C-alpha cells in the first residue's frame, strides 16, 4: 500500500470531485455537520464528527426497494420490479471518522452475511471509495479506544488521511484506495506514514483505555442475559430509540408497502428494537414484552451477540453519539462494566 502527501486540502478535494465520482463529505448546514454531496469548498474540517452517523449514505432512513403497477392492460400488473439499483452512482466519501468506518464494516457483515447479500447496501457500500479522516483531537464523548478502535483506525476504510498543516497525509489501505489515489493529480509520494505513528500515539493517549469486556464475552449468553442490572437500567429508559437511530452499527429496518390506485412501492425504514411494535406477533404475543427485555436486547446485541456472530468484532465502536443524545443518560460504557462484573 502507498503513502502520499498533498500540500493543500482543497486542491485534493477538487481532484477527488473531478474523478468522475460523486463527492460525499462532511459539511455544515443549519449549524450541524452532516455527510452530504457537496462542492469541495464547502467541506468541513473543524468537526468532531457528523451529527448523524454516516450509515444513511449507504442505508437511508427510507429506501424504496420495489414497485408495481395495477394496470391490467399493461404487462406485469401486480408484479414487483426492483427500484433504484441502476441509479446508484460511484462515490468517493471523504472525512469518515475511523469509528464510523468501523461501524459500517460491522453493518457490512450483516448486509452481506453468510447466506445473503443485500444488493441495495452492497451497490452503495462497495461502489464508494472510503477516505477516513483521522481524529487528531478526539471529542469529550469519544471512546473508540475503549472498544478496540483507534482515532487512526483503518477498519472499513480504503484510505486514511490526516491533517498536515494546510494539507493532508494519506495512506492507502486497499487496492480500491490505491487505484483511486493513483488517478489523482497533485499528490506527492511518501511523507505520511512516519508522522502518522506519532500522531496516532498522541491522539490515543487522550482517549480512555480499554473496557474490560473479557467476562461478558467469555460467559454463556444466558449468564449475561440473566444478570440483575438490566432491570435498573431499564427503569429509567424511555424506549425512545434515539440511541438506535444515531448508532453507526444499528441496522434494523421495517419493510412497508404503500399503494395508491395506480400501483405501489415496497420500502424499508429504519426501525428500533426499543419499540414494542418491533417484535409483537400477529397473535398479540410479544416475545419482548417490557422495557427490560428491549433495553437488554440492544446492549446484548452490541456487546455480546455481534461479537459472537462476527468473530469477536465489538458491536459498539465508541463514537459516543448514544452517550451524548440519550435523554436519560444510559451510558453504554457503564452497561458494559455491569455486564463484566
Amino acid at each position, binding site marked *: 500500500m502507498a503513502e502520499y502527501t498533498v500540500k493543500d486540502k482543497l486542491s485534493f478535494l477538487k481532484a477527488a470531485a473531478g474523478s468522475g465520482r460523486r463527492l460525499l463529505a462532511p459539511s455544515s448546514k*443549519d449549524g450541524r455537520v452532516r455527510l452530504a454531496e457537496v462542492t469541495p469548498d464547502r467541506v468541513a474540517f473543524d468537526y*468532531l464528527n457528523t451529527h448523524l452517523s454516516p450509515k444513511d449514505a449507504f442505508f437511508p*432512513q*427510507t429506501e424504496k426497494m420495489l414497485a408495481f403497477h395495477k394496470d391490467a392492460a399493461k404487462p406485469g400488473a401486480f408484479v414487483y420490479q426492483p427500484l433504484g439499483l441502476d441509479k446508484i452512482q460511484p462515490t468517493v466519501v471523504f472525512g469518515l471518522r475511523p469509528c464510523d468506518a468501523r461501524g459500517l464494516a460491522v453493518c457490512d457483515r450483516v448486509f452481506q452475511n453468510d447466506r445473503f447479500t443485500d444488493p441495495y447496501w452492497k451497490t452503495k457500500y462497495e461502489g464508494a471509495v472510503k477516505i477516513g479522516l483521522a481524529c487528531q*483531537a478526539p*471529542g*469529550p*464523548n469519544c471512546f473508540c479506544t475503549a472498544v478496540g478502535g483507534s482515532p487512526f483506525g483503518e477498519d472499513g476504510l480504503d484510505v486514511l488521511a490526516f491533517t498536515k498543516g494546510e494539507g493532508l497525509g494519506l495512506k492507502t489501505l486497499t487496492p480500491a484506495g490505491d487505484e483511486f489515489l493513483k488517478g489523482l493529480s497533485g499528490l506527492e509520494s511518501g511523507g505520511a506514514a512516519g508522522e502518522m505513528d506519532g500522531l496516532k500515539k498522541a491522539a490515543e493517549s487522550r482517549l480512555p483505555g480499554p473496557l474490560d469486556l473479557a467476562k461478558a464475552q467469555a460467559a454463556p449468553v444466558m449468564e449475561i442475559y440473566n444478570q440483575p442490572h438490566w432491570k435498573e437500567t431499564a*427503569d*429509567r429508559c*424511555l*424506549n*425512545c*430509540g*434515539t440511541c*438506535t*437511530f*444515531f448508532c453507526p452499527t444499528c441496522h434494523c429496518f*421495517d419493510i*412497508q408497502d*404503500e399503494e395508491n390506485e395506480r400501483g405501489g412501492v415496497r*420500502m424499508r*425504514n*429504519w426501525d*428500533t428494537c426499543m*419499540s414494542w*411494535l418491533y417484535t409483537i406477533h400477529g397473535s398479540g404475543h410479544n416475545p419482548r414484552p417490557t422495557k427490560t427485555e428491549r433495553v437488554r436486547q440492544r446492549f446484548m446485541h452490541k456487546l455480546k451477540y455481534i461479537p459472537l456472530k462476527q468473530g469477536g468484532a465489538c458491536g459498539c465502536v465508541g463514537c*459516543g453519539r448514544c*452517550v*451524548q*443524545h*440519550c*435523554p*436519560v*443518560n*444510559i*451510558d453504554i*460504557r*457503564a452497561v458494559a462494566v455491569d455486564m463484566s462484573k
Partner: protein
Amino acid sequence: MTSLADLNQNIQTAARRALADGRAEVVFGYRQGTAPFTAAPHFARTPEDCGQFVWTSFARVNLAAYLPKYPGKVALIARGCEARSAVGQVVESQFPRENLYVIGVGCQGMVDPEAVLAREKRPIREVTEDLTTINLAGDGWTASLPKAEVLRRNCKTCVCRTPKDLADEMLGGDAPPLPADDFADLKALAAKPPQEKMAYFKGLVKDCLRCYACRQACPLCYCPVCFVDETRPQWLGKSNDAMDTFTFHLLRAFHCAGRCTSCGACEAACPMDIKLREFNRLLEEEVQKDWQFVPGASWDQKPPLTTYRPDDEADFIK
C-alpha cells in the same frame, strides 16, 4: 440556600425521610450524569440510594412521565413543571393522589446545551454547576456562564418556578417569578397568510427522524398504543415522508392541547433539536384565552378539552 451542596443534602435528607416515613417506596429524582450536559433519572429505594440524588440543570426529561401505572407509592423530587405534570397525571387518573408525595424544589431553570455550545466553541470536556452558574472546562481552559443566560427556551417563560401550591413539602428558596410567555412571535405568525404559516411549521420538522423521542419523553403521551403505532388500521405511513411526519407532530400537538405544562422534555429529548413546543404554544394560548385554564394548577379541575359542558362555546359550528 447558600450552596448547591446544601441543596443536594436537603434533597437527600428529604428523600430518606419520605422512605422512612412510609410516604414512598421509591423516590424519583436525578443523579449526576456520566458525560457533559447529562443527568440520569435516579430511582431510590433505600437510604443508601438516596445519597446519589443531586440537583441538576441538565435534566432532559420530566420525572412525572414515569408515573403512569407505576406500582407503589412514589415521592417525586419535582421542579415546578414536574409537579404540574404530576398533578395532570392525577387529574387524568393515571396515578392515584394517595400514592404520590411531591417534594417541590424552587427551580431557576434548566440549561440548554445548545445555548452553551453557541457561546463556547471549544470542545467542552467537563461541566459542573453551582446555584447560579455553570462551569466549563476544556483542554487547558475553564470558563463560567450564568445559568440565566443559557436557559432552555421553555424555562425563560416558566410560570411555576416555585411549586409551593402543589408540593407536599418544599425545598430550596423561592425562585423569583418570570414574565409569562406573551406569544408575541406566534401572534405575528398567526397574522401571516396560510401558506407562510404552513411553510413555517413544515420547516420546523424537516429534520425529524420519526424516532418519537419527543413522545416517549412527554408526560402526556401515556397512551398504551399511540395512533402512529396502530396497525389495523394503520393511520400513518412509517417512512420519512414529509406529510406523514407533519401529521404526527400536528396530531400530537392537538392531543396535548390544554394539558401541556411547557416542561420542554420533548425539545430536550429531541436529538435533532426541533423546536417542538412551537406546535403546543399556540394551543396553550388558545386554551388559556378560551377557558382560563392553566394545566397542572389544580388537583381537581379536568382539562377543558376532555370535558363537556352544555354551555361550552359552539360558535365554530356553522
